[in-house]
Structures are given as C-alpha cells and as structure tokens.
C-alpha cells in the first residue's frame, strides 16, 4: 500500500480535487471487499460482544442499558453454567475420542483393497450428508422404547433392567446425543484419515517389513508419524466444532433431564431463545469464545513445536 501511494504521488499543478482523488484511489479499490467484511463479520461480532455488557431482554422493552460486568458476576456464581461447562468437557471429549477412534479404524479398513471397496466407501461416508436435525430425531426415536429397537436390545443383552429410554435417565442421558454425534461424525475422520493414509508411500511399509518390523511396529513407526499432523489439525477442528455443536442436544434432550445434558452451547441457546435474555447469553458466549481461543492457541503452539522437531 505504501509503495502504491508513493508511486501515485500527485503531479504538481493539478487541482485539489484531482490530488485527493488520486490519493483515495487505492482505498477505493480495496473498499468493496473491506465493506463486505466489516458489515457481515465485524459488525455482528462487535454487536454480539457488546450485548454481553448490556441488559438486553426481549420481554422488557425498556432494557438495553449498559450494565458493565454485571452479567459476568452473575455467571461467576451460576451453578448451571459450571454444570454446563463440565457437561461440555464430557460431551466434547467422549464425542471427539470415539469419532476419532472409530474413524481411524474405518480408514485403516478402507485402505486395504477388497472387492466392492468403492461402494462401501460411498456408503460409509453417507452419515455426513444427513442433516443433523434428522440425525437427532432418528436417534431419539431409536432410543425410544415405544418405537425404537435399541432399549429392547440392551434389555435382551442384560445391560438394562427394563427397556427404558436412556434419554430420560439422568445418569445415562448424555450418551444418547454422544452416540448420535459419533455416528454422524465418524465419516469426517474416516475421510481425512483415509486421504492421509493413501499419501503414505507403500514401499516404506515394505522396507520396514524387510527391516524386521511387525504389523504393530509398522503402525507406530510409519503410519502414526505420517498421520500425526492430520490428526492434530482434525482433532483441533472437531473439538472446537463439537463443543459449539448444540443441535443434537436441543433436538434429542433439550438439555434435560434436569439439565444433565446441558452443555455451554445449548445453555446459551436456552438463555437466548427460551429465557429471551440476550445479554446474559452473550456473556456466556464470550466466555466460551475465550476458552476455545485459548484451546486453539495451545494446539497450534503444540503443533508448531512438533513441526519444528520434525
């Protein structure tokens, strides 16, 4: 930009308007993109953040005044928030771990050639294409003993004393949305891991086999190091997405029973669209944003360290 304006320095003896127009030229070129970014990204972000410091309640027409850090003080003593935070850790940790584990196993299986592999690959990636709303409803029905088979199977296997709906059991309810989430999210890991696996040169495995490495050693000393960067970035992305991902919980349990499946994201949704307290919801969202930013920075630093070492 500095170079551009320098080379466009006004020739002497022109009118004032001419000179101003020439000065403004580069900014005018950049303006359309900048205006778009500011209006659709920065303004809503700033507005949302500002709600966190204001009293915005839809049912109170005269609300909207500046309240400073009041929302955060309330939040500090809000037991529901802490439970939601703990639930978020559980929900995110279990979902990401299971999605990753099953996704990796699936990718390893699909990496081996067999008859009809193309068809199986296409089928395996299907859940990713199902809308999350539908996924949630489908799994809620599967867990429902009146129309779904799962409770009866669990009962037959002796896992349950009676064919009950786990979504209404405070101790087990979280596993409902987690199961749905794992089913829905496995393809993401399977696709990315499969792509990374197929980029590993085959003769490395052959060289290792000749060098004396068994199947387990080949996996730990060739497959894992090659997959590590992909694993790091996908786990980071999924963690952020899943901790923000309230659709399945809203559809399947709506945070219940007794708030046992309420995660921070669904708590924000409840505060904003059920209690209609936009100010408080924004304050919680701000805290979640800061936590996720800190987590992302941590992973990026870790990854950088790994890359430097490698």
């Amino acid at each position, binding site marked *: 930009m500095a170079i551009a304006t320098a080379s466009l320095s006004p020739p002497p003896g022109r009118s004032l308007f001419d000179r101003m127009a020439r000065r403004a030229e580069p900014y005018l070129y950049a303006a359309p993109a900048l205006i778009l970014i500011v209006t659709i990204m920065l303004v809503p972000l700033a507005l949302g953040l500002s709600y966190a410091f204001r009293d915005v309640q839809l049912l109170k027409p005269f609300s909207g005044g500046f309240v400073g850090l009041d929302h955060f003080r309330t939040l500090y003593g809000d037991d529901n928030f802490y439970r939601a935070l703990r639930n978020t850790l559980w929900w995110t940790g279990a979902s990401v771990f299971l999605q990753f584990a099953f996704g990796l196993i699936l990718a390893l299986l699909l990496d081996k050639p067999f008859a009809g592999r193309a068809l199986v690959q296409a089928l395996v990636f299907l859940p990713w294409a199902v809308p999350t709303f539908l996924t949630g409803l489908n799994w809620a029905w599967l867990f429902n003993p009146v129309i779904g088979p799962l409770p009866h199977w669990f009962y037959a296997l002796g896992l349950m004393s009676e064919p009950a709906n786990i979504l209404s059991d405070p101790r087990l309810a979280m596993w409902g949305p987690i199961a749905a989430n794992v089913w829905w999210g496995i393809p993401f890991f399977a696709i990315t891991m499969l792509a990374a696996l197929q980029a590993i*040169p085959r*003769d*490395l495995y*052959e*060289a*290792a*086999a*000749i*060098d*004396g*490495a*068994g199947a387990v*050693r080949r996996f730990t*000393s*060739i497959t894992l*190091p*090659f997959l590590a960067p992909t694993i790091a970035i996908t786990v980071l992305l999924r963690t952020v997405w899943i901790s923000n991902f309230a659709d399945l919980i809203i559809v399947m349990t709506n945070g219940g029973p007794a708030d046992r499946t309420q995660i921070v994201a669904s708590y924000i949704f409840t505060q904003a669209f059920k209690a209609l307290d936009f100010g408080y919801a924004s304050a919680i969202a701000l805290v979640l944003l800061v936590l996720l930013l800190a987590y992302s920075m941590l992973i990026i630093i870790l990854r950088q360290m790994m890359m430097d070492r*490698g």
Partner: protein
Amino acid sequence: MASIDISNVRKDFGIVQVLHGVDLAIGDGEFVVLVGPSGCGKSTLLRMIAGLEEVTAGEIRIDGARVNERAPKDRDIAMVFQSYALYPHMNVAQNMSYSLRLRKAAKDKIEAAVSNAAGKLGLQPLLERRPKALSGGQRQRVAMGRAIVRQPKAFLFDEPLSNLDARLREQMRAEIKKLHKDLGATSIYVTHDQIEAMTLADRIVAMHAGVVQQVGSPLELYDRPANLFVAGFIGSPAMNFLSARYEARDGKGAARLSDGTLIELPATYLIEEGAPITLGIRPEHVAMVPATPGGLQATVDLIEPTGFGIILHLGLHGLPFNVFTLDREALMAGPTVTVSFPQQHLHVFDHQGNRATQ
C-alpha cells in the same frame, strides 16, 4: 553371504501369468543382474525373493532353506528400493540402525555398525540429518547404508539408480561395484538399463515376458546372444537385423537377401536349404568400404555425432540400418555408402528367432 536357488517359480496375478517357471541358481557372493524391458517380470521375481510377493508355484531357497512361507524379516535379506524408501521422520543414523534396533542389538554394536557403514559410504557428516535435507545421491547412499548395516545374507536392488541423473548414476554404479568387491555379498540387481547390467554383473539374466531368455556373463550375452530378443536388447545402438534365406554352397553357409545379394557365412548351420533366417550384425561391426559393383548400397538418412563416435542412420533396402564408427570422415558420408559385414561378426538366427546351431 548365501546362495539363492530359484526352481520353477511361477507368479500369477489373477488370471494374468507374469512369470512362467523361472529357474536360476545364484552362487555365494555372486552379483547377478536381472535385466529386461518393463513388464518382463524382473521386479516381481526380486520381490518374491524378498518375500513381498507370494510365490504362486515353485520354490525359492536361501542357503538351502526353503523360504516360500517365510516373512520378509525372517529371510535375512536387505533391499534397496528405487524410491529409496527412507523413513522421513528419522535421521540418517536412525534410518540405518532401524533394523538393528528392532532386533534389540546392543547399543555399542549398533553404533559400530552404523559408523562402519557410514565410513564406507562417506555419510559421517550427514548422520544427524533427515532424508529431506539430503540430495538424491546422498539418499541413495543412505539406502545402501541401511542395507549394509544389517550384514544380510543377500542384497536385493530394485532399480536403485533410476531416479538419479546420468552423471550421478555413473558414479553410483562404480560405487556399487566397489562396494560389492569389498563386501563380497550375494547381490541381485534389477534394472532395465543394459549398461548397468553389463558393467555390474558377474552374470546377467535377460528376461522377456516372464521367461528367462539367457543367463551368462555380460560378454557372453554380447558376443553370443541366444536369441533375437537378447541380441536386440543388449548393446547400444541396437543390433541390425536383416531377413534372408539360408543357402549351402561348397560346404559353407550363405544368406540370400531379398534383393538377391549373397552374403557368405562363417560356417554351415543346421538349417534347411531355403529356410528363412535373420542375420544380425552390431552397428560397431559394420565396415564401410569403397563402392564396388555388387556391394551393399545404403542411403544415408541421418548422421548423429556423439562426440566419441558417429552413428549413421542408413536405409538398406528401405529398412533402417545403423552403423557406429569412430571415423570422423563419416560425418561427410552420403548420399549413399557401401557397407560390408565381416564374417566373424555375423549372428545367424533361425526362423524361430533362436541362435542357429552350426
């Protein structure tokens, strides 16, 4: 060090047969080169010896012991790959010591083996580097070092020089030969490059379409090719072939070319009078002579100076025919030249393409 015996080995990929019964006995310390065009099955044979491909039928023995069912790691062989197949996340020393570490060898033993191999290959200053920080030639050396460290019964090379540029290839070729002299290890080397085959091998195995065409010393293959394939494959520029009919006159054989020219052969052959034969003569053996009536006239299509010598692309009876000469006057040749074929350099093949018996 070990001998390797291959008896009647066949390989099918589904319904496609790629090896049709290969027999080969490789002696202790011998350097054998498998050579042939791509798709001839030479790499498949090597990978079967390594244990990377299953043997469909037949038997492979290393040091007398059948290894068909043994895993690659239990065959005590080392392999150098065309792509080098170095482990990218390990440095040079780790790459070279990987197999010993897997075998849980003593630490000082590993270090001694690595530094010994690194010394032989000039890799000492690079031991801490990772493969991506190495040049192609250095990677090639590390791949060989990885094989040497093991002190295996046999070395297997799968086109190890194909990814290098011409100058480096020559240099590494010489190094491999020197290394084999030093170590005296049994080596099997696969290449499609006949120069590599000629320069490195104690014995060459020429293969074509999954069948061994000829086994012999490099000069044996060059001087007495067993059939048209070997004759055409070994030697550059390639041997010239002329179609003719066999005639026996005055107790001596002769070949009648299609234009009626009669070429006397060095001996009589067990071929029927009038049967079709193929005459072969290498470009470097063709003599250019002053024009004589009844001499073989050829048109000059193209002159290629290589610096060392000159390749003349001729047309003989409308068919391409090459001459290689060191005589710089050939640069001025044309538009026609007269060629003659010294008898002792003529190769005679019967109508099936096999070397004719005298």
